[in-house]
């Protein structure tokens, strides 16, 4: 495939699409299926823990150091938004990098608030809510709700941006996130982490989630 190179590794792509499924699932289940809601939350927590660690030790394109750019670089990229052609980056462009961070932050806020939330009846609550009293748990529940409003906005903006890139800039960002390959010609060496490393980080993330689900009691 000339002009087509691998950008995104398997874990990054899997995590992205798993979240696309888990977030609506968690929203749907919160009404009458709190067991499922908790399971979904734990799954998201595990994926987030993995992704954050991966941002430091994962494949090059997934590392924060690779795609989070400073204000000068980000501002310098802005004029390229209006150009009707694709820009070439080995992964996120500077704006995309920041939006990925914002999305991650919104998700972390959503999950962490849920760990301590208590519902209005005191019947359903997160795994760490026994550390706090009822009124504080109610505050966490309100945070959990507000956080979801923010998350929805950020997700809508994300989807709008992807569509903008597809239609206006003629740059398909969806296919690379599925196949891992992009029609990018940037001459930059990308390292892809081994399956052993993937396995190790996955075990760490799963262990942490198991511990949290047990209320931080071994």
């Amino acid at each position, binding site marked *: 495939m000339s002009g087509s190179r691998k950008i995104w590794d398997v874990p990054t792509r899997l995590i992205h699409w798993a979240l696309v499924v888990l977030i609506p699932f968690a929203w749907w289940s919160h009404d009458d299926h709190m067991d499922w809601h908790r399971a979904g939350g734990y799954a998201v927590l595990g994926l987030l823990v993995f992704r954050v660690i991966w941002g430091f030790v994962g494949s090059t394109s997934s590392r924060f150091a690779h795609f989070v750019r400073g204000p000068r670089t980000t501002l310098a990229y802005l004029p390229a938004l209006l150009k009707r052609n694709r820009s070439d980056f080995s992964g996120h462009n500077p704006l995309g990098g920041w939006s990925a961070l914002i999305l991650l932050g919104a998700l972390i806020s959503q999950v962490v608030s849920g760990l301590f939330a*208590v519902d*209005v*009846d*005191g*019947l359903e*609550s997160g795994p760490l*809510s*026994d550390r706090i*009293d*009822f*009124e504080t*748990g109610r505050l966490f529940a309100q945070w959990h*709700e507000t956080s979801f409003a923010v998350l929805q906005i950020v997700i809508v903006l994300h989807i709008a941006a992807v569509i903008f890139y597809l239609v206006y800039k003629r740059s398909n960002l969806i296919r690379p996130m599925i196949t891992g390959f992009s029609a990018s010609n940037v001459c930059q060496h990308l390292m892809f982490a081994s399956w052993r490393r993937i396995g190790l980080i996955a075990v760490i993330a799963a262990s942490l989630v198991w511990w949290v689900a047990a*209320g931080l*009691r071994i």
Partner: protein
Amino acid sequence: MASMNFKTLSFLFCALTAPLVAQSQTLTPAEIIEQRQALYREIGTAFKTIRDESGKPTPMKFAMQNSAKRIASALREVQPMFPAGTGSSSGVETEALDAIWTDKADFDKRYEASIVEADKLVALLKQPDMEQTRAQFKVLGNQCKGCHDKYRLEE
């Protein structure tokens, strides 16, 4: 005192109890709603305590028993606190839906049922078996939820 006739006695009775009656009748809808919500927050706190304890390896039975007793007594306290005019028509912010008053018979029946289940929980907590307690806790929770689904404003 033996010579006091019935008229005097009844006058004295009314004079002494009138202030008490007058006071309970001057509770505004806002005050009733506020007291209602405070009692429900107590019930919520009590539910949380029972739930927290039952999840621990060594639950504090004493705390659970106190909480269960509080739920049963608070439910009884709240029961008469839904007089007409304390819903959306009161102008005060409340989650009590108008269905409570249009369907009062069903509301009262469900309330009675929740008190019965709460009393069962209190009784079960006197026994050492935690499994039955946990099961009854779920039953009580579902009883509460059934009423809330119909009569309380969804958040």
